């Protein structure tokens, strides 16, 4: 079975600090996609960053970057220079064998001023 585990239910950091959210997964596929989605309070879920498993280079999007370790099945999200607008629920997701998404339980991230 394919699974996604986020072991940090809630985290909080001061504005401008760097924070890393953890995600581990399990799949028997060799090629797949991993995603981090963000759900701000009372707002729509949006894609933050996507990683293709066959690419060794870690994906980056401005202040957001991932540390993808395929052998360890680990996919962490690093947010640099955190801002108040980064306060949100963050979900890690794995593309399943039938192209559906398998979701982690989420991490609530609070950025304190």
């Amino acid at each position, binding site marked *: 079975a394919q699974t*996604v585990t*986020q072991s940090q*239910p809630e985290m909080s950091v001061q504005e401008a600090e760097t924070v890393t959210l953890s995600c581990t997964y399990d799949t028997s596929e060799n*090629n797949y*996609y991993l*995603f981090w989605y963000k759900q701000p309070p009372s*707002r*729509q*879920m*949006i*894609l933050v960053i*996507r990683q293709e498993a066959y690419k060794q280079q870690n994906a980056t999007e401005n202040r957001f970057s991932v540390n993808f370790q395929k052998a360890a099945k680990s996919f962490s999200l690093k947010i640099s220079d955190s801002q108040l607008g980064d306060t949100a629920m963050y*979900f890690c997701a794995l*593309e399943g064998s039938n*192209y*559906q*998404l398998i*979701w*982690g*339980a*989420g991490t609530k991230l609070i950025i304190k001023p």
Partner: protein
Amino acid sequence: DVKVTQSSRYLVKRTGEKVFLECVQDMDHENMFWYRQDPGLGLRLIYFSYDVKMKEKGDIPEGYSVSREKKERFSLILESASTNQTSMYLCASSPPRGRALGEQFFGPGTRLTVL
């Protein structure tokens, strides 16, 4: 920009009522999904559809049905609402499946309370 809209942000219904949740997307996406979101459980897939009049069960279809008569609209139906169906319901859509994509576009969600 892709826009996915849901008919209600908040809904309160009574046990046993038939409940309709509507979702409309304006980007001509083939794929549409219904999830429920509960604290500590993430998103769980209820039903999805790859085309008009097509539907496939997700992980938790019991107590739900869906309808997709038009490409842009995907409805979730609770035949007889129960208190354990109190939850946040999220609709999503995505383009035709290609390995280079995978992104899903979400609506704002409907918070359903069943009394």
